[in-house]
């Protein structure tokens, strides 16, 4: 098996079911009608030996990386910019790069799963990159420009 880049099929369905809330809702929230909240999005790293892809429905620790200063479940994604649209394309991108500092991840990894930790860890997207390792150092996954042509998550 191998990891493959995809927006998870389950996420497409869950958008229609209203099971993800990446920005504060204007009218209603599942938490409160008067104090709407934004779901917490997280990002976790997975080994080359993993099999994440379109069929991934939720975060699982199976095949997740492990090492010094890496916390299972990954990091909280900075989400200061709510989803929006331009033309016929809706889009969303984390408002800061994904970063891990002073980590040692000795076993090769090649993908990051972005998922909704507020909503039962439901999967959002799997993003692959070249196999790499980190030794007592920093890993940065740079986020693209948040627009309809480049955003991390685009629904056209």
């Amino acid at each position: 098996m191998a990891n493959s880049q995809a927006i998870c099929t389950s996420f497409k369905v869950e958008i229609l079911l209203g099971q993800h809330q990446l920005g504060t809702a204007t009218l209603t929230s599942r938490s409160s009608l008067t104090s709407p909240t934004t779901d917490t999005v997280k990002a976790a790293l997975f080994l080359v030996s993993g099999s994440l892809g379109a069929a991934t429905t939720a975060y699982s620790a199976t095949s997740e990386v492990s090492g010094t200063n890496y916390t299972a479940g990954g990091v909280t994604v900075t989400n200061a910019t709510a989803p929006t649209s331009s033309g016929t394309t809706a889009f969303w991108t984390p408002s800061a790069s994904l970063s891990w500092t002073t980590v040692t991840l000795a076993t090769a990894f090649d993908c990051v799963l972005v998922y909704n930790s507020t909503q039962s860890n439901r999967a959002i997207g799997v993003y692959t990159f070249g196999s790499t390792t980190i030794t007592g150092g920093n890993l940065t996954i740079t986020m693209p420009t948040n627009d309809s042509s480049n955003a991390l998550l685009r629904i056209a």
Partner: protein
Amino acid sequence: MIQTTHGPMDEADLVRSDGVDDGPERFVLWTEYALPDGEVVYRTESGFAKTALTSSADANGMITTDEQDGRGIVMVPESELEKVSGANDGPDSYETWIEYRRPDSDKVIHRSASIGLKLRNPLFTTQGQVGG
């Protein structure tokens, strides 16, 4: 509406093209809208520069390592280490990395990396298309 070189135009009246220029120095995603005769009236692009990591030293010139002693993570002056940096230009990403070793050892005691994702247009459509 698209703000074109001829003023605002309805997106439905234009022909959209998306592409990728994967050059030696930059990775660029672009989108163009053209009139039916081919004249490009709107273009937007973004991406990232394929720049190298040049140092992992902190403000004091120290490098963190994967080693620990009784006081915690071992820090070593950058000037005492051998440094190698490079890049891996793959189909899904551009990784720039930097490694440090002690002069008398082949063991990498620090490796940092920065990854730019080569996302294609469109990444996801309602038809489920991925890549492009």
